[in-house]
């Protein structure tokens, strides 16, 4: 080969080499995998399109006023989203109120205090909690949690705080409170899992710098480690929020399925996901169905936005460490 430049035939694009690549499977594999990738993009686009077009009857009839109208009367043909938006927000907020302190505290314990092997085992178990299907939480919710709340928690609450509007009124078991409590159990594993990862990602030398100045372990954790992990922890909260907003079965089994806007947590209520789950199959009439679909679109939009925010927050933390 001395004196000549040898160019491998595969690098010269000719008709014969294309055929060869086709036979070798390269083109097929590339096109096939590319087609699947594009198909996924198409599917997501389809979701948005279908939600939008099928909501049109409601949009045309009520306009954006649908979003803050509180009247839901299928028989009379009046539809408004507010009771469901209200219920979704209240239950999600209540769930976070309980789950965030609990979850972050547990994450701190698992990341900073527990010996590594114990921490890994416990985290494994907690992540199993996240794998429990929603309908099972609902089952436990109806038959175990609600009776406990009714027989033990609410009497105490009404006796101590009954004068507050949030604890006023009669309690029948199914309520915003029950739904919020069940939701909190469901989102806690997410907060723990993500927060723990974020805390573990804080470099060792930050901890050492603080300890070397004569601080206690807690002081180091609170004043140095957590500030370092702050954005990631907030990201985990957003992730949990997105989960809580979209949660359907457990909520619909314990919330009472009554479209109502009231400050009392003891009252039955409704959420977006719950009303769709409950009423979609039996909904008759174009307007009824499209209202439910419009609600689905609202939920879709909400969860997209919050998930996007969460991703940015969690990614910033982990990227800074690498």
């Amino acid at each position, binding site marked *: 080969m001395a004196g000549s430049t040898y160019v491998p035939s595969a690098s010269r694009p000719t008709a014969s080499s294309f055929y060869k690549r086709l036979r070798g499977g390269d083109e097929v594999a590339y096109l096939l995998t590319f087609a699947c990738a594009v198909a*996924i993009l198409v599917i*997501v686009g389809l979701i948005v399109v279908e939600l939008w077009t099928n909501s049109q009857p409601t949009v045309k009839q009520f306009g954006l006023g649908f979003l803050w109208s509180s009247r839901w009367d299928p028989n009379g043909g009046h539809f408004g989203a507010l009771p469901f938006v209200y219920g979704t927000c209240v239950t999600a907020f209540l769930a976070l109120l309980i789950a965030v302190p609990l979850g972050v505290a547990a994450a701190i314990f698992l990341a900073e205090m527990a010996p590594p092997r114990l921490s890994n085992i416990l985290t494994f178990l907690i992540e199993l909690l996240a794998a*429990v299907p929603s309908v099972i939480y609902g089952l436990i919710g109806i038959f175990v949690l609600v009776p406990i709340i009714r027989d033990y928690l609410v009497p105490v609450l009404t006796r101590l705080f009954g004068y507050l509007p949030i604890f006023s009124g009669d309690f029948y078991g199914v309520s915003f409170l029950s739904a919020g409590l069940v939701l909190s159990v469901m989102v806690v594993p997410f907060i723990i899992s993500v927060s723990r990862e974020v805390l573990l990602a804080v470099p060792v030398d930050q901890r050492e710098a603080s300890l070397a100045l004569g601080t*206690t372990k807690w002081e180091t954790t609170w004043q140095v480690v957590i500030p370092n992990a702050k954005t990631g922890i907030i990201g985990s909260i957003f992730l949990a929020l997105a989960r809580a907003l*979209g949660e359907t079965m457990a909520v619909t089994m314990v919330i009472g399925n009554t479209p109502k806007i009231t400050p009392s947590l003891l009252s039955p209520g409704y959420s977006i996901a719950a009303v769709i789950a409950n009423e979609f199959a039996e909904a008759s009439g174009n307007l009824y169905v499209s209202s439910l679909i419009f609600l*689905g679109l609202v939920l879709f939009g909400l969860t*997209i936005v919050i998930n996007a925010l969460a991703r940015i927050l969690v990614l910033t933390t982990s990227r800074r460490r690498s």
Partner: protein
Amino acid sequence: MDMRISPRRKIANAVMLSLSGLCTVLVISVLFFILGYLLWHGSSSLSLNFFTKLPKPSGETGGGMANAIIGSGKVLLVATCIGVPLGFLAGVYLAEYSGKTFAFTLRYVVDLLNGVPSIVIGIVAYAVVVRPMGHYSALAGGVALGIMMIPIAVRTTEEFLLAVPNSLREGALALGATKAKTIFTVVIPAAISGLISGMMLNLARVAGETAPLLFTALGNMFMSPGFMHPIATLPVMIYNYAIAPEEDLHQQAWAAGFVLLTLVLFINVTARLIIARGPASSRR
């Protein structure tokens, strides 16, 4: 300046550490409570009838969920046939072929899809399958669950393929294998344990999904022939029986819950153990 450590700081340290430990104990005990209660209540309601009989009309006892068990199997089969190939191949594209911008876009969109509430996906499956067909079907339910399987299939495939060291690819290419051959005969087999366990986790996740089936597969008191009819599934039966008034149905709901949870957790634990021992575990 006197900066000796004060007792107050030492007490604060001990208190806060104990509190955080307490919170962890609380969370863990909830898990054990759920599992334990379901185990106890559910297993005591289990009977042979449960697995072999069809649901009895309201008021009669002794029914079972044979149709729901098979129904779940059918719907999951459809879902796997739709979601896994799509997701897997797209994942292969991401890991082996894609350029940077397209990869970024696809990953972003896939993550978006992952965050969509399952009930919304049910709505879309209704609009795209049930409405044109004019009736509910196992197919529609499978489509809904299949769409839900896509994001995890894409992500796990990409993750485990990327974990395969480049030296393997280069070794195959240097022997004259085409890129496609390298991927399918060297890279994928190297990542196989991770891919399989990823699919198991995926399956376990959608096996428990109820909401998207409520108005796609709907339900059936009898065995459904084929895939084009409304079909009973385990999660939906649990829901229907739990909110029904009859106590016998509640018992069946517990039994079904027990079966479902055992299955889901079993698949989960197995899959995670496979991942923990696999080649990709060295990354962690």
